[in-house]
């Protein structure tokens, strides 16, 4: 196993999570706090990628981003590049697949923040944006962190959607799960075991970082 597989896996998962987080916060706020019209529909759309096979999501992304797809054609016209079969497509596939996990976790966390506290902050002179940043997010912090963790580990292990829309190109789109698939297919047992060990290592490090962040927030609260 080369270090590039590990780095590419991390790169894809980090980009997917970084793209997802603001979007998940915004959607959660609209549904849980703003209680916009049609939130039932939004809720359904958010949950949808959970319920359909990742391969179907990959296929849908391929249709959308492919040379002749509406999004693919537009990107090609503006930037002059193709997205499919690049690491960007892999990150996008991971983002779509992990979005329901991060969003639904954050929704629950935000829903648990007492709206009377937010009202109090409004009454004390804070606008909606400030209330979000100083009351809602800090009080939902642990849930947001949990959402990020779940989304990130899901992105690390993403296979089905990625293989369709990004392919399995060594050094370009081959993340750990894809490399593992190749190793198993070609009977490279030693390579496969190395990749499994790398997956476990990544999971453990992620959990440790998560716990460290939690600990830090708890210490701040006590002060």
């Amino acid at each position, binding site marked *: 196993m080369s270090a590039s597989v590990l780095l590419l896996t991390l790169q894809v998962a980090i980009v997917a999570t970084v793209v997802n987080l603001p979007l998940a916060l915004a959607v959660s706020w609209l549904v849980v706090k703003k209680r916009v019209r049609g939130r039932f529909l939004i809720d359904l759309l958010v949950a949808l990628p959970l319920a359909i096979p990742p391969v179907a999501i990959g296929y849908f992304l391929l249709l959308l981003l492919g040379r002749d797809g509406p999004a693919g054609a537009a990107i090609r016209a503006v930037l002059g590049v193709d997205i499919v079969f690049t690491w960007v497509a892999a990150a996008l596939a991971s983002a779509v697949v992990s979005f329901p996990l991060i969003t639904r976790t954050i929704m629950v966390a935000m829903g648990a923040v007492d709206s*009377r506290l937010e*009202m109090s902050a409004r*009454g*004390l*002179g804070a606008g909606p944006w400030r209330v979000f940043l100083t009351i809602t997010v800090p*009080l939902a912090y642990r849930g947001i962190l949990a959402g990020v963790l779940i989304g990130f580990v899901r992105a690390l292990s993403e296979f089905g959607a990625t293989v369709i829309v990004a392919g399995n190109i060594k050094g370009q789109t081959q993340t750990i799960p894809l490399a593992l698939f190749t190793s198993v297919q070609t009977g490279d047992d030693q390579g496969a075991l190395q990749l499994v060990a790398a997956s476990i290592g990544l999971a453990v490090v992620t959990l440790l970082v998560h716990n460290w962040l939690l600990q830090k927030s708890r210490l701040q609260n006590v002060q």
Partner: protein
Amino acid sequence: MSPSSAEGTTVPVLSFRVKKEFQNFSLECEATVEDGVTALFGPSGSGKTTLLNCIAGTVSPEEGRIEAMGKVLFSSSVGTRVPPERRRFGYVSQDAALFPHMDVWGNITYGYNLTPKKDRQLDPGQLIELFQLGPLSTRNVTTLSGGERQRVGLARALATSPKLLLLDEPIAALDWVLRGVILRYLKRIRSELGTPMLYVSHSISEVMALADSTIVLSEGKRLAHGPTSRVLVDPTLSRVAELATLENLFDAEVSSVQVDDGLAELRVGDATLLASDVFAEPGDKVMISIRAGDVILSLDISSRTSARNAIKTVIEEIHPLGQRVLVYTDIGERLAVEITPGSLRELGLHVGQQVYAIIKTNSIMIMEPTQPRPGPGL
């Protein structure tokens, strides 16, 4: 506190006309609130809190107009709706709603830091002192007691130098003793800071102790509005108020404590009262409660009685309210006494008459934490 225009006419602190429909309830109320403390009194479900939320801006009325200090905050006809953060009201709810992720100081300065410098009239240090929060300022608010939380809530709201303090039953969730403590702080806000207050309450005793004027709400409609002393004797009020539990809530100062018989001498208004079970020291300021039904009126004190307090006083008002009669006498504070229509007839009581108010020592309740203070040897 209330600003006057060049012509000398006073702009009301708040004037509102609010109409809000619910499925099986409709609120329709209109009033002008002046300086001082205004109570919004009514039984639960009468629409008091909804009305307060309309004024605070967290609930939008269907129809109406809300104006504070000459500035329109809400108008259904013009389509104005100033958001709560720009209304400059302080809001204190029953449970204080303190921010659990900030310490006491963080809570108090939250709104202060958001208040434009030119509008800052009270600073957090001053409020910490007023509410005696100094030793608590770095404490995590989740570790505070109910009374402490409410003190922080009041300080936090006042730190924004509000034009009006909106109080939604701020002491209803507290135990009886702590109610007295917070009530004393509310009275200090009135006398030392002069911030106008709109005080939602379903306790007639609190209203009587605190409010200069009172708006009575019942089933979403205004039943009465005027000076508290007038409104509370309105015959229509007996329909909505629990007069049976009417308490006189007075500020008192402990003048001496007689250790041997456990009695303490209290200064209340012009009178000196003897009370039992007082865990306080001379010089302490406390709030006391005397139930109107526990006071006896007597034409003379010739008859021997076990009651230790007999205060010579004059009847100021007599109000027959259905099954009971409310008599107000002056002991330097307005002392409400509840008697029966039969007693009124037999004694032939009338306004201006001299009587004795007789109160047993154990009818005087001290509304302060009762645990004895540790002595020097402890």
